[in-house]
């Protein structure tokens, strides 16, 4: 089947098999490999993207469901070489180790700060509790969110 969606401001069309997730379509059909495939079960948040402005796990959405909709992925955040302030904060705070969780966390943080520009520690914990990170112990991720909130 053919599907058409707006990704990071660009209209994209692709052939896809009906069983493919949005994550697969983004990664393998559209070459947008930024969203990660850590569990493909909706448990880790590594594939977080915004679908019509709502934070979703791309692995739980069918590619076909995104037909005609607007998707923002991690690739859509930076302005060329200029990092989004959330991305900059993650780098500066040392919140990135292996980085596999990072694209999902960055997208989730952007979404959090959109609705709550200066979240408390507990609010950050709750908002990011759907994004697993195995490397950092989260402390530096909380630092990054605070930094981004202040910048």
């Amino acid at each position: 089947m053919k599907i058409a969606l707006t990704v990071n401001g660009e209209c994209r069309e692709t052939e896809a098999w009906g069983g493919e997730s949005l994550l697969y379509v983004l990664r393998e059909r559209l070459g947008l490999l930024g969203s990660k495939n850590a569990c493909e079960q909706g448990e880790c948040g590594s594939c977080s993207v915004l679908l019509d402005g709502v934070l979703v796990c791309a692995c739980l959405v069918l590619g076909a469901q995104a037909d005609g909709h607007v998707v923002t992925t991690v690739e859509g955040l930076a302005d060329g070489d200029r990092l989004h302030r959330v991305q900059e904060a993650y780098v500066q705070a040392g919140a990135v180790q292996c980085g596999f969780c990072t694209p999902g966390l960055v997208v989730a943080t952007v979404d959090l700060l959109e609705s709550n520009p200066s979240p408390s520690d507990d609010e950050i914990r709750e908002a990011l509790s759907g994004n697993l990170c195995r490397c950092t112990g989260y402390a530096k991720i909380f630092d990054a969110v605070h930094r981004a909130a202040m910048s």
Partner: protein
Amino acid sequence: MSATATTPGVGRVGDSVPRLDGPPKVKGEFAYASDLQAAGMLWGHTLRSPHPHARIVEIDVSAALTMSGVHAVLTHDDVPGQKTYGLEFADQPVLAHDRVRYFGEAVALVAAEHPEQARRAAEAIRVVYEELPVVSDMERATEMEPLHPERPTMGHGYRDDPRPNVVRHMVIRHGDPDAQGDVSVTGVYEVGIQDQAFLGPESGLAVPDGEGGVDIYVATQWLHVDRDQVAPCLGLDPEQVRIHLAGVGGAFGGREDLSMQIHGALLALHTSRPVKIVYNREESFVGHIHRHPARMWCEHRATRDGRLVNVRMRILLDGGAYASSSTAVASNAASFAVGPYRVDNALIEATAVYTNNPPCGAMRGFGAVQTCFAAEAQMDLLAAELGIDPVDLRLLNALAPGDVLPTGQVVEGSCPVAETIRAAAAIPVPPAEELPRDPIRLPGGAGNTTRGEGVRRGVGFAVGFKNICYSEGFDDSCAARVVLRADGSAEVHCAAAEVGQGVTGVILQVARTELGTDAVTLMPHTTSTVGSAGSASASRMTWMAAGAVRDACRAALEQRERSGGGEVDVERVHRHPRTTPLDPESGQVTGERAHVAFACAAMRVVAEVDVELGLTRVVWVGTAQDVGRAINPIALEGQIEGGTAQGIGLALMEEIQTRDGRITNASFTDYLIPTALDMPPVESVLVEVPEPAAPYGAKGVGEPPTVVSTAAVAAALRAATGKPLRRVPVRPDEIVGLALS
């Protein structure tokens, strides 16, 4: 494909430097192994055994072969070279032949155009199994039928054990094993199976070179040893197999063993097309080795005034179906069983066995995590028995340079155990939080299960201790190559695997420091341009890579000096002080040392427990770590925080569940790792006493936080509940008193 060079930046040894791979990672541009693509690429899939132990009667691939999009279906018959591989013993089949020994063992391979076609074709392979009795109890394993009747002979100076299914039996006899004290405490402790649960699933891309060889781009911890295991199985010379590091999404020991390397290469060579294999989460859980579960019987004897007189410990480790690194894990568990304490007499016995349970191998802390949990519980029992403060008891027995370890090795170099204990004990503990409070700050959290009526607070302390670098005579080395160009810029080649720990930063910091320039580029990590770096494990990579890069930089400068300019290109191999094996009968050092250096960490944990519901919340962690010298403090804190999280996970929630050898929780839904809601703030202090034998005095830092944190959390839970809690992960029924503990 992956292999990208890391570009110049700033930061010398000792500076807090943000990661150079940070910007590409936050932008989603960093190519992980699962992101690789190549023209004409096929997808590989592995058919795995649904039985933990069975004889393979027949494999029929005919239906799978004719399915649309399918290009190859391979079984053990298609393995052209050596049929088995392994890190220490080649006991693991590339593809199962006569029988399968664990749930999830690889049986057949498929390559197809779409991953779904590959998966369906694998389902269409008909395998007839005849189920065999499952050896699932590690205590009974030594009396059951041998799982490896033709077990490779031990050699290696190991004590040969005649019992079936013993991978290694290791005994350390020190002083008078019958020495008595004024008091003694005993306990039996247990640790469940922990998983590395790195986020990036096992993945890689194999590309045939058209001349019979193959390039493998893969997430691994040790490129050269992968090559040395892969090539013989493919029937190729080592030069025909080139391993390139693809972006690694965490490792923690779980990528020391091979995953898709041989399988991908077989499919690629068979189809003459690039083949990519990406495990899904379930396959990742069954497809890699885990941390050894352990049962430990302990007795500690001490004088009235608190001096340890004798430590006796029997350690049983379940290695699962294949040896992997069980032999070294057993030895490490025994070597570090006592912890960083002085004791004149000890009898320690560690046995690793084969069973039909999931295979176990390397995981952060490598044998020391299990014994630290038991030994520290024993120290607390002893403190209670003697009426001595637990911190004072530890200080009284703290190991220092000049002391003798149970293996007879004299501690040399940096060993600031007492300093580390004092530093951790000096971090102020936060005051108890008032009630009522937001439920998110109570055990049970967002579950909103209590208003705090049954909540008790406990404070626990523990000390952990581990070796740095490889031990027992292993000829451990790391190579680095430096090319100094006429314009003053430099290229560094080193095959040290960057698994997220930050070794690329260390390499660049060292090169910039030594060469006095920022114009340094780290070239792709590969087996084709530089010698082996050894593995990113055993907290050795910082030491070894820093040493190799330093040596190569200095040699390059010297050579340029001599030649009076122009381009120079030198490779140097760094080795740490030589170690020798332990005596197979007594476990005593046969030379000067069996271990190169040691690092310890001390940790205080505050936890709250809902004693009615059995729910827990770790409130705060204060820790001090002996780091030798900090090369990149911000990265080091990240290691401490992350390592602590893994230890908290093992204490509270992480356990691979098996039923008769079958894993029943192979998903992030059922295997729980700490989330942002589970992690407390971690306050850390770095204790810097430079290690004289190490480049820049730096010790590896990855493992001590994981070694100590499980023990420290368990101690806090005991303090909160008054229950003995002798098993981790601690289960709610043990906290509320419904389970015998």
